[in-house]
């Protein structure tokens, strides 16, 4: 009588593993999902008039991108590097009254998305650098290392106030 029960033949474990691996390779993606996060402004309710806050002209930074992707700031042409330092100075000067400054970005319909993202990137960089500087001065840590409450406090001093508009086409409503 056979005493020795033969072991289960495990030579096909590798095949099962290959199958599972192939499944995962096909159905998943490494996902390059890094980007710039933004919040769009809400639509005003139909009975409320659109609020146009009265701001002094000097508290508004007007940026415009035309169809050839040329950037102008308050009607003078500038480059991307200058934009970052210009925006930083603008926001910094108004840190005591953070709700009164506004950055207006106006695009032409034919401006390329690349230029738009480049400008958004520089503005985000300006805000991030200012917030980081404040975080280091106050708590000796970088902005990213702060906890939620401290980050909210920093954001209150340097809120992101960017408003966007686009040239309407002929007969367009907005």
């Amino acid at each position, binding site marked *: 009588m056979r005493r020795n029960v033969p072991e289960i033949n495990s030579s096909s474990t*590798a095949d099962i593993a290959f199958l599972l691996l192939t499944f995962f390779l096909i159905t998943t*993606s490494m*996902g390059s999902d*890094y980007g710039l*996060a933004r919040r769009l402004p809400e639509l005003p309710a139909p009975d409320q008039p659109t609020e146009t806050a009265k701001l002094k002209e000097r508290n508004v930074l007007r940026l415009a991108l035309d169809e050839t992707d040329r950037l102008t700031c308050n009607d003078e042409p500038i480059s991307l590097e200058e934009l970052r330092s210009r925006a930083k100075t603008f926001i910094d000067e108004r840190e005591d009254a953070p709700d009164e400054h506004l950055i207006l970005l106006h695009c032409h319909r034919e401006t*390329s*998305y690349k230029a*738009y993202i480049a400008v958004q990137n520089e503005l985000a960089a300006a805000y991030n650098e200012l917030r980081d500087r404040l975080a280091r001065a106050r708590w000796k840590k970088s902005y990213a290392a702060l906890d939620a409450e401290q980050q909210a406090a920093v954001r209150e001093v340097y809120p992101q106030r960017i408003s966007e508009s686009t040239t309407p086409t002929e007969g367009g409503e907005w």
Partner: protein
Amino acid sequence: MGRFNKTGKRGVPALNTASLPDLIFTLLFFFMIVTNMRDSEPKVDITLPEATQLEKLERKTPVTFIYVGKPSETFRDELGDETRIQLNDAYADLADIPGYMTAEREAMSDENRQQAVVSLKVDQDTPMGIVADIKEALRQADALNVHYVAQKRK
């Protein structure tokens, strides 16, 4: 000394492959951890713009993908060369966006609705007119959290 016999082994013993499954399992776990389930395949060709101030998109919150670009190779014969909008996994028109987004948001719980993000993957040469129209359509559907996808500038 007479007991030792040289006639036995001639060849080199075969490689022991008993640990091959373990290697494969290691690879498998790596892929399971590092990747996320792909919801939709972009049917449009997209070259992402470059940026430096990038934040990661949290995949835990419900995400709707909007791809904008020229149709990819396989679809180019039917659809030509114009920039197209793709919502999640099917081509769509601008007018479809508010309806689609409102329907998606109704189906979410209140908490999810606040955190829901729309991920915009737009080709870098797209004219801003289309993007502005899409943003306006999203505002109408009250989908206000937007994420512009970009790649890291080297």
